[in-house]
C-alpha cells in the first residue's frame, strides 16, 4: 500500500525529526491523504495527552528548599562572552606560566571528583543489605554474568591461597560509564572492588595511590591491567597491600 511508507515515518514526522526535504513531502502528502491525516491527528492527540498527563508529580516545598539550600552559592564557572578575543589574548600571555600549574590543578580537580564518586559508590555498597546481583564465590560464574552488561571484559583477581574470597558482583556506573563491581570477603569484612575502562579516570589512577579519603578507609587504585582496565578498591591501609598483591 502506498501509504505504508508514510505511516512508518509518521511519528518521526510529528516529532519534527525528518529532514526538511522529506518534511515538505510529508506535509504535501498529509494534506491530500485522508487516512494519513487522520492518523496524524490521533498521534498528535496522543502526544498532547502524554505531555499533559506526564506533568504529574510536584516536589514538596520542604524538599525543594532543602536541595536549593545545599546547592546555593556553590561553584561558579565562567563562560567566555563575545569579547573572547581579549580573553584569548590574556590567556596567551599567561599560558606558558600557568600551564604547569593549571595541569596540576586540573588533575587535582578530576581526582577529587573521581574519589568522591568512588567513595560514595563503595560506601553505598558496604551499607547495602544486598550488595551483589550475582551471588557466587566462583569467578567462572561471576565473570560470564557481566558479559553484555559492560562494554569490556576483565580478569578477576586470583584469590587462591589468599585470605580473600569472592562474594559476587553487580554492574555499577561511574561518571556515566558502566563498570564491574565485585565484592570480596575477608573474614567477616566486605571489600568493594570496582573496575572501569579508561574514561576520564585513567589519568588519575596513579595519583590515587596513598591518598586517604577518611581516617578509617583508604581508597586506592590497583595496577593497570588488561588493556586499560583500572581496578579500584576501598579497604583499610593494612589489608590493601595484601589485596593489591593479587
Amino acid at each position, binding site marked *: 500500500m502506498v501509504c*505504508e511508507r508514510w*505511516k*512508518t515515518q*509518521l*511519528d*518521526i514526522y510529528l*516529532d519534527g*525529526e525528518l529532514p526538511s526535504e522529506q518534511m515538505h513531502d510529508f506535509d504535501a502528502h498529509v494534506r491530500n491523504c485522508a487516512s494519513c491525516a*487522520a*492518523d496524524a491527528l*490521533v498521534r498528535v*492527540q*496522543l*502526544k498532547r*495527552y*502524554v*505531555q*499533559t*498527563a*506526564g*506533568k*504529574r*508529580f*510536584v*516536589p514538596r516545598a520542604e*524538599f*525543594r528548599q*532543602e*536541595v*536549593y539550600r*545545599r*546547592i*546555593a*552559592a*556553590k*561553584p*561558579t*564557572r*565562567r*563562560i*567566555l*562572552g*563575545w569579547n573572547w578575543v*581579549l*580573553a584569548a589574548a590574556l590567556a596567551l600571555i599567561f599560558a606558558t606560566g600557568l600551564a604547569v600549574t593549571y595541569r596540576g590543578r586540573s588533575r587535582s*580537580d*578530576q581526582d*577529587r*571528583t573521581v574519589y*568522591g*564518586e568512588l567513595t*560514595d559508590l563503595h560506601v553505598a555498597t558496604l551499607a547495602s543489605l*544486598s550488595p551483589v*546481583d550475582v551471588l557466587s564465590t566462583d569467578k567462572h560464574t561471576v565473570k560470564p554474568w557481566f558479559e553484555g552488561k559492560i562494554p569490556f571484559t576483565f580478569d578477576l583477581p586470583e584469590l587462591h591461597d589468599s585470605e580473600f574470597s569472592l562474594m559476587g558482583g553487580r*554492574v*555499577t*556506573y561511574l*561518571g*556515566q560509564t558502566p563498570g564491574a563491581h565485585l565484592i570480596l570477603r575477608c573474614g567477616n569484612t566486605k571489600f568493594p572492588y570496582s573496575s572501569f575502562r579508561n574514561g*576520564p579516570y585513567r589519568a588519575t589512577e596513579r595519583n590515587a595511590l596513598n591518598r586517604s579519603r577518611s581516617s578509617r578507609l583508604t581508597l586506592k587504585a590497583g595496577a593497570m591491567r588488561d588493556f586499560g582496565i583500572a581496578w579500584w578498591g576501598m579497604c583499610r591501609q593494612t589489608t590493601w597491600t595484601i589485596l593489591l598483591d593479587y
Partner: protein
Amino acid sequence: MSAAEFKPVSFEELAVPLFDQLYNFAHWLTRDRSEAEDLVQETYTKALRGFASFQLGTNFRGWMYRILRNTFLTSRTGLKATMTVPLEPEQDSLELPIERETPEAMLIERSNWQLIQNAIEELPLHYREVLLLCDLEEMSYREIAETLSIPVGTVMSRLSRARNTLTELVRRKLEGGTVNGMRKMEDTTRHLP
C-alpha cells in the same frame, strides 16, 4: 566592547530551573515519592561534585538527566526494573506502521488524564523513559540517545513501540469500562434518520 564579556555561571543557575522536571521524571521512574526524592538529591549531589568536569557549552540538561538515570539504574528499584527483558527484539530501523483504529481517536476528557497516567505507569521502564523524554521533556532524538546511551535508531524504535503499547493499554482500559472510577467514553455520534 561590552563589560558583560565574562558571564559567570553557577551550578545553581543552571540546575535550579531543572528541579521540577527532574523530580517529575524521577518519580515516573521510581513510582515512589520517597525514592524520587532520594534520587533527585543524589543526582544534585553528584552533579554539584562533578560540575568542574562539565563541559560548558554542551547540553547541561542532558547531562543532569544522564546522571539521574544512571543513579536510578544502580538503585535497587532500577536494577529490579531493568531485569525485565523486552519480549520483542529491538531494531535500529523503524518499520512499524501506525495502527488505524486507535482509542485516542475517541475524545479523552480532562477527567481521563488519570487513565493516560495509569497507562504510562504500566509501560515497561525502557518505553516509559523514552516516551517521557520525547513527549514531555521535548528532547530531540539525539538528546535522548545521549541521555540513555543508546543509538538514535533504537530511540526511534523504542518510541514507536512505546506509543503502540500505550495505545493498546489505553484501548484495554477504555474497553474495560469503568477505570478507576471513571466512566467509559460514550459514543456521542448522532445518526440522522
